[in-house]
C-alpha cells in the first residue's frame, strides 16, 4: 500500500530520472531517448518502491532482480542504480564512452547492479525464468522483474519463454511490457500484429493486468497485485508514451535511437527541469 506522500516522492524521483537520462545522453550523439524515457516510471517504481534491494551490497544473494530485457533502455536503469549509490552519479556522464563501465547495452560483467547481458532482443525473459528457477533450486525467496519492450515481442523466443514461465509456475516472476506502441522504425503493429495483447498473455496462463505506465500509483498497485500471484507468473502491460516528458520526442519513433541538436537538448532539459520543479511543489 502506498500513501499519497510516498507516491509524490516517487513521482519526483521519476522526474529526476528523466532529467538524468537526457543529461547523461547529451546533444549530438545518437542515444535511445524514446524507450528510456517511456520506461522511467516503471524503473522508478521497481527500484524505489517495490524491490528488496541493498545498494551497498548489489550482490546480496537474496536481492530482488531486475532484468532489462529491452536492453537499449538501460540508461533508465543506470540512472536508478547511480541514484541509489551503486555507482557514482558522476559516472553517468561516461555513458558509451570507450573505457566506461556503462556500455550501450546492459553488461553484467561491466556494471555493478546490472543482472544480465541483453541487447539482442527477445532473450531476457528466458534469462529471468532461469533466475526465478534458481531461487526455487537454491531455496531463496527473491523475486524477479523483467522489463520487455513491446516491439521486442516480435521476437519468437519471448513466446517460448512465456510458455516456460507458466509451465514452471513461476509465481516469483513479474514481467512488465513497456507498451509505447513504437519500435525503431514505426508502429509495433507494422511487421507483426501484437493485439489483442492482454488476452494473448492470459491465454498462455499469465495473470495479466493493464495499467497506465506513467501513473505511479497504478504502477505501484500493479506491482503489489503481482505479489499475490503465487503459482503463476504476472504480466503488467504498462501503456506508455515513447519519449515521455520531452514534447518533441513524445510519441515519435524518430527518437528511438537518434542524436538531438544543442537547441533540442536545451529545450529537453528545460522541459524536464520544469517538470521536476512542478513535482517538487
Amino acid at each position, binding site marked *: 500500500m502506498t500513501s499519497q506522500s510516498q507516491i509524490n516522492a516517487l513521482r519526483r524521483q521519476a522526474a529526476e530520472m528523466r532529467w538524468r537520462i537526457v543529461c547523461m545522453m547529451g546533444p549530438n550523439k545518437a542515444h535511445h531517448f524514446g524507450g528510456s524515457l517511456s520506461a522511467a516510471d516503471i524503473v522508478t517504481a521497481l527500484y524505489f518502491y517495490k524491490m528488496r534491494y541493498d545498494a551497498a551490497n548489489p550482490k546480496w*544473494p537474496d536481492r530482488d532482480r531486475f*532484468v532489462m530485457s529491452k536492453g537499449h533502455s538501460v540508461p533508465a536503469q543506470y540512472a536508478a542504480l547511480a541514484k541509489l549509490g551503486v555507482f557514482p552519479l558522476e559516472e553517468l556522464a561516461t555513458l558509451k564512452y570507450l573505457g566506461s563501465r556503462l556500455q550501450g547495452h546492459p*553488461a*553484467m*560483467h561491466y556494471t555493478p547492479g546490472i*543482472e*544480465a*547481458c*541483453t*541487447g*539482442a532482443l527477445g*532473450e*531476457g525473459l*528466458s*534469462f*529471468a*525464468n*532461469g*533466475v*526465478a*528457477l*534458481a*531461487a526455487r*533450486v*537454491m531455496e531463496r525467496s527473491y523475486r524477479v522483474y523483467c522489463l520487455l519492450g513491446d516491439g521486442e515481442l516480435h521476437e519468437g*523466443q519471448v513466446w*517460448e*519463454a512465456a*510458455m*516456460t514461465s507458466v*509451465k*514452471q509456475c513461476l509465481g516469483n516472476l513479474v514481467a512488465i511490457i513497456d507498451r509505447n506502441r513504437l519500435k525503431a522504425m514505426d508502429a509495433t503493429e507494422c511487421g507483426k500484429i501484437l493485439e489483442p495483447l492482454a488476452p494473448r498473455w492470459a491465454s498462455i496462463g499469465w495473470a495479466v493486468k493493464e495499467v497506465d505506465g506513467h501513473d505511479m500509483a497504478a504502477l505501484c498497485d500493479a506491482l503489489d497485485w503481482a505479489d499475490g500471484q503465487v503459482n503463476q507468473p504476472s504480466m503488467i502491460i504498462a501503456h506508455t508514451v515513447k519519449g515521455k516528458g520531452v514534447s518533441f520526442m513524445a510519441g515519435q519513433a524518430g527518437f528511438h535511437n537518434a542524436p538531438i541538436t544543442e537547441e533540442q537538448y536545451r529545450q529537453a532539459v528545460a522541459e524536464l527541469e520544469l517538470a521536476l520543479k512542478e513535482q517538487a511543489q
Partner: protein
Amino acid sequence: MRDSTETRFAYGEALLELGEQRPEVVVLDADLYKSTRTVLFRDAFPDRFFDVGISEADMVSTAAGMAACGLIPYCNSFAMFITGICYMPIRTQIAYPSLPVKLVGSSYGLTQGPDGASHQSLEDIALMRGLPNMTIISPADDIETRQATFALADWPGPAYMRLGRYPTPPIFDADHHFEIGKAKWLRKGSEAVIAATGHMVAKALAAAEDLAHDGVEAGVINVSTIKPLDEALIKDAAARAVLFVTVEEHSIIGGLGSAVAECLAETRPAAPLLRLGVRDCFGESGLADELLEKHGLQPKGIRASVLQRLAPLS
C-alpha cells in the same frame, strides 16, 4: 578391453554421478533427454532437471539466468541445434559475460546418420570457435568423456562439449588424465603426424597401424580440447613432421583443421598440412559407416589420403 561405446552414454552416467556430488549442478534439455542420456539425471534429480520443451534458445538463456545465480547448468540438445539455433543467446548471455554454462551437443557429425543433413552438425565447432571465452571439448572415448564431464563442473567459464552416438573403441584406461587445453600423443611417429578429435581418434590410430605396414611411421595426437588449442604441442609436432594431418568429423572450414592451420601459419615453416574432414558440403542420409567412408574418414580413406600427400614429399 572394454567394448566400443558411444560417448553420449558415458556422459549420461557421469552426469548422474556429478549430480550426486554437486548440488549446484542442474540439467536442462529440449525434448531429447533419452537421446542425450540426461534421462538418468532426470530420474534421479527431478527437482534439478528442466525439460523446457522444443525451444533450444529458451533453454540456453534460461541456463544463463541460472548460472548468474550460482548454479552450474548443463544444457543438452543435438549438436546442430544447440550451436545453430542458439548462437545469439550463447553469444550475448553466456560467452560475453563468461557465465559457466556447459553446452553439450549430442549426436554430432556424419555419424548422426540416417536423419540427414538437417541433423548432421558439420559446422558446430566453427560456430563456437569464433566466440571469445568459449572452450570447446571433443572427447575421444568413454573415459575421456567421463573425465571431461567432471572437469567442466570446475571450469569457471562457458564450454561446448561435442558427443557422439557412434560406437567408438576404448582408447584410454582409467589412469588417463584429461586436462582442458592439453592435447596428448597417443602414438609416436614423425613421418606423418595425425592430429585427430572425437570419433576420428580411433580411426586415426587404425590408419596409423595400416601406415606402419606401408612403412610409414605415423604418429597420432588426440586433440580433445579444440579451443584453447594446445599450440605448444602442435607446433612442436609440426616442426618435426614430414606431413601434418588433421582429421575431424566436421567441415574443414572452421574446425580442428582450421585451428591448426591458423596456429601453424603464424609459426616458422612447419610441415605441410593436410586437412581431412568434410570438404565444404552438407551431409546426407545414410549409415554412419557408409557416410564416413564416402568422405574418406574411415581408416582406409585416411591412409590413402596420407600416402597420396606424402608421396611427393618423401
